[in-house]
Each structure stands twice: as C-alpha cells, then as structure tokens.
C-alpha cells in the first residue's frame, strides 16, 4: 500500500521500526536464552559483572534475565491494549461521525467525559477491585484509554462522510456497517495506525506505572514489577542503580521508537509538513540553505554557490547575521559593512536587489 511504502522511505520510521523489531525479537525468543528470572541464583545486589551482566537484585535474581523476560509481558499487554483500543475507538468514532444526530451527541459526550476523567486514579480504583493479573491491567487500561482514539477518528469521519464516494455508496444501497468499515475506515489508515501506536505508548507507560504502584501481580516478571521490587528493596539507598536503570531505559527506548514512527507517519501524511519537506529537499539540492520561514529563502547563506545565486528569490525579511557572514558572492552592489548593517532598521523588505 502506498502509505506503508512511503513510511518505509522515512528515516525516522526506519529507525523506530528497527528498534521495535529488536525488542519484539527479544521478547519472543529472549526468555529461552537467559536464566530463570525468578530464581534466587547468586549473592544479593552484585554489581554488573562478567557472570551477571546487569548485576543481581536484592533477592539474588539476575537483572539481565528480568529485563529480557519483562519485555515479553509488557510488550504483549501494550500491543493487546493498543489493538483493542483502536478497535473500540474506530467503532465509536466512525459511528459518531457517520450517523450524526443524537448518536453523535451521545457518543461524543461519552468520549469527552472519559477523556477528562484522570486515568490513573480511576485505573487504581478499578484494579483494586479486580483480581491482580495482567488481564485485569489490560482491561483497566482499555477502559481508561479508548477515548482519545474515538475523538480523533470522529473528527476525521466527519470530513470523509461528506465526500462523494460515501454518498455514492449510500445511493447504491450498501449497508451502513459496510460503508463504515469498508468505505470510510480504509481512508484513514494512517490515522488508525498512528492512533494504535499512541495507544501502545500509553498502555506500556500506564502499565508500568500501575505495576510500580503494586496494582499488578507482583509475582509476574514485567518491567513494572521489576521497578516495583527495586523500589520496595530500597534500590536507591543501597546504591544499586543497576536494578532500575536497565528496565527504565528499555521502557524509554520502546516509547521513543514508537513515537519516532508516529512522527514519520505525520511527516508522510500531513500535506503541509510533506510539501515543506519536499521543498527543503529541492532547495538543499540546489546548494541553498532553506530559510527560517518557508518559502522564504535565507538571503545569503555561506554555502551558497555563486552560480546558483541568480536562482534565489528576493528575501522578505533577511536576518542580519547571515549578511555579516556572507561572502561577497555577487559583486554589485557591494555588501553592506558591519556598521551599516547595525544601523539599518530591521525593515529589509525592499532591499537593493543584490541577487539580480
């Protein structure tokens, strides 16, 4: 598909995807390659060494094994919650935007209410009454996290539902559900993908937070429970930084990689950002530095080649510094001296045409 193709051409997306692939592979096969993370193997609180690469916990468990095995449950829940959240969000959002009227009013109200109720306290209350297990955590995260997607999808549906192809499908007698999921939904692939990624980022972060609070099943090895045990065992007061750093860095790397992919999606699909990126690419290929306010080009870039100088349009608001730094690329008229520049008020819209 075109969108995914474009995405693979984006540097940020490629970096993000590689990092995610590495973590997914680790989560998939890693646990078979390391020691049992729950076993009490060695002396407590050994610093990183050749035997235990990331040291041991207060219980003498292998931190490296815990970090690797924690990835499995944390990523699994993150992605599971992401899928469900996107499904609910898309259904509610498209239904609200497509049906309009009282359906829209009711669904939008519900969405907005769930958006504004703070997630963590609600999640804590919910999780407290449920059995402590990864599945309850997932349920709680879905309930507190679906609203944002619904809101975004609804906004997009409103604009798509007015398009001709939707009216055409309606007149040709297609069922409403088919139009919603086969006509409208495929037109927001990028939105749904980016909503999914956002939901996964939220789910992983919130899950780690809830488990850190002690709401999860503390006998399960996940990133959140790793941190819970580290905090419980006074990791900081015993100076055992190695029990918290690997897990935190893993969480951050996953979050960062996912956010990078989302940026890439934005760059690829947002026409404004895309046209600007294309523009910058063309300008840079010409050897001119793009200006700070496109499409205005910086008047005199140091890297400017004299032969290309004639191509540059007149500056609208040339900053002073580049003028000072500029080589006398074109000889007539002579570039202003430093004093002249300092005296000139910043109203350079009608400048002598040094470019001509």
């Amino acid at each position, binding site marked *: 598909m075109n969108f995914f193709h474009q995405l693979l051409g984006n540097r940020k997306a490629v970096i993000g995807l590689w990092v995610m692939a590495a973590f997914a592979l680790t989560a998939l096969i890693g646990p078979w390659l390391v020691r049992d993370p729950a076993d009490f193997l060695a002396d407590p609180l050994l610093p990183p060494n050749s035997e235990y690469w990331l040291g041991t916990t207060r219980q003498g468990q292998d931190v490296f094994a815990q970090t690797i095995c924690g990835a499995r449950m944390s990523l699994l829940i993150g992605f599971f919650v992401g899928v469900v959240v996107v499904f609910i969000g898309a259904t509610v959002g498209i239904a609200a935007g497509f049906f309009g009227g009282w359906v829209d009013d009711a669904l939008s109200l519900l969405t907005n209410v769930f958006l504004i109720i703070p997630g963590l306290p609600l999640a804590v209350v919910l999780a407290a009454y449920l059995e402590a297990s990864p599945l309850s955590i997932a349920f709680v995260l879905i309930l507190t996290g679906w609203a944002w997607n619904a809101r975004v999808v609804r906004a997009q549906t409103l604009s798509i539902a007015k398009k001709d192809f939707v009216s055409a499908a309606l007149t040709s007698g297609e069922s409403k559900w088919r139009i919603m999921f086969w006509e409208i939904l495929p037109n927001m692939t990028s939105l749904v993908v980016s909503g999914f990624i956002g939901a996964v980022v939220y789910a992983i972060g919130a899950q780690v937070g809830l488990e850190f609070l002690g709401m999860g099943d503390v006998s399960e090895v996940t990133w959140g429970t790793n941190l819970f045990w580290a905090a419980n065992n006074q990791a900081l007061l015993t100076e055992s930084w190695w029990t918290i750093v690997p897990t935190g860095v893993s969480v951050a790397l996953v979050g960062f990689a996912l956010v990078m992919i989302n940026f890439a999606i934005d760059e690829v699909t947002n026409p404004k950002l895309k046209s600007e990126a294309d523009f910058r690419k063309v300008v840079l290929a010409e050897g001119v530095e793009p200006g700070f*306010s496109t499409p205005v080009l910086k008047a005199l870039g140091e890297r400017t080649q004299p032969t290309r100088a004639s191509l540059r349009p007149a500056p609208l608001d040339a900053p002073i510094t580049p003028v000072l730094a500029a080589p006398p690329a074109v000889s007539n008229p002579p570039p202003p001296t430093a004093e002249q520049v300092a005296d000139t008020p910043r109203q350079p819209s009608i400048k002598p045409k040094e470019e001509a």
Partner: protein
Amino acid sequence: MKFLLRRLGFYVLAAWVSLTLNFFIPRLAPGDPASALQATFQGKLDPAALEAMKSAFGLTDEPLYRQYFKYLGNLFQGDLGISIAHFPAPVTEVISEALLWTLLLAGVSVVISFSVGTILGILSAWRRGGWLDSIAPASFIFLGAFPYFWLAMLLLFVLGFLGGWFPLRHAYSDTLSPALTLEFLLDAIHHAFLPALSIVIASLGGWLLSMRNTMIGVISEDYVTMAQAKGLSSRRVMLNYAARNALLPNITGFGMALGFVLSGSLLTEIVFSYPGQGYLLFEAVKSMDYPLMQGLFLAITVAVLAANWFVDIAYVFLDPRTRR
C-alpha cells in the same frame, strides 16, 4: 458567558459520571462487596467501624437505587467514609490535608513545563532546522519516553543521594512546622525542587512538540508572510502574529493533558515520599484502603475538572470568538 456555562454543565456531567462509576465499581466487582469488606477487615477493625464504613458506602441490604441516593446524599455532606489506613480519621480529612501539597507541586510544575515548552516550541518552529530545532524536540521526546517516576528515582539518586544537594523525602524538614515564614518557604521549595524538576523534564517534550507543529502550520499562512512583507520586526511577527494564533489549540490540549500529567506527578510523589495525593494513593493501595482510594479518585477528578474550567476561562480571554 454562554460558552462558560455550557462547559460548566459538561463538567458537572463528568463529575456525575465519575461519582456513579465510583458507586458501581465496587458493586460490579466479582463477589459481594459487603462480605468482601467483611472478610478483608475482619479482625483488623472493630465491628462498629466496619458497620460505619459499610453504611458510609451504602453497602446495605437496601435496594440498589436507595443505596445510590444515600451514597449521593452522603457525598454532598462531604462524607466519603472512614479511612482504614488512618483509622479513625474520615477520608475527607485525610485527603484535604494532602490536597494542598499536590496542587502546589503539580500546579507549579505544569505551569513551568507548559511555559518553557511553549517558548521552546515557538523558537524551534521559527528557526526551523536551526540548532535548537535539531536538538530540543528529539532530546525532550526521548526524556519524555521515560516513566515520570523513573526519572524521579534517577534524579533522587544522582542529585539527592550521591550529590547530597537536595533532601531525599517529604515536603519540608522535620524540624520545621508549616508557617508563612521565609525559612519555611525556602525549605519547602528546596524539597519540591527535584519532584518538580522530574515532572517538568518528563512533560516538557509534549508541549514543545505540539506548539512547534501548530506553529509550523501557522507560519506558512499568508498573513504571516504579509506581516513580514510589511517589514515588521522578526520578533513581533513571531510572537504577535504566529505564536498568538498557534497558542489556541495548545491551550485546549493543556486542559486535556492535565489529568495525564497529574497522574504522572502522583507517581513522582511516591518516589519522594511527598505528602500529597499520590503518596496517599500508594499507602491506600498498600493497606487495601478502599474508601481512601475511592475518595482520592473523586478528589483528583474534581480538581482536574475545576482546572479545566479555569483553562476555559483563560480561553475566553484569548479567543474572541468564544465571547460572542
């Protein structure tokens, strides 16, 4: 005015939904809540306290709708039940003591991170591709990917524990008692510095990025080009023309994100044993103090709704269209 009233109506509705959720969650949970409470606290509490708790929650044998109205009635009288962890203090008392600290810590850090993030966003959009733009967004997004409380642990370890420059816990020194003296204020600021710093670092990236992206859209508008063509100073175009308009969607996002940031700051409080709502929440979870948990949920929700309404009021001043 109509706008503000409509929003107020919405917040009242949201508050009602959270009250109702709060009522139904214990009752929909697997098992019978009354006997679950009985089983959990058997031997821990004297029977009279248990009875009082059950009636405060309306956990009686009455029909559900009667329980519900009783629960609402109790709420409006400020009765949220009795805390187990702080027995026999009522939940409202326990919460109100801690509310000020949370509002102070979270409020100040959110305002700081929003202002700094917005300014950095304006600058990096204005000098797009400049050094600030190539460093700031990426590095703050990376920092923002860490869990709040993890950054807090790291800061506490490096600056508090190893460096010894900041206190490790609590909101003020044990030797002082709360008073409006300079000594106490300085001490409180000293204690709040690290928790606030971790919240600011973790949440700055979001504000920065949304401001930058809106700003980029606004900069390519014709009226900005026009302002530049008129020869207005760069600074004026940036602040009065571009940033002013780019700020509006960001203010809306501000209200939305408050709950999220507050959740993060609750976890930060736990790391620093800061005596706010987050620390109470942690204690409540540890001691299975259900009344306190539910009371905290309501208190935090009401605080977020109120803050959102203030954001709406600010919006009215910023956007003339809402004043019609």
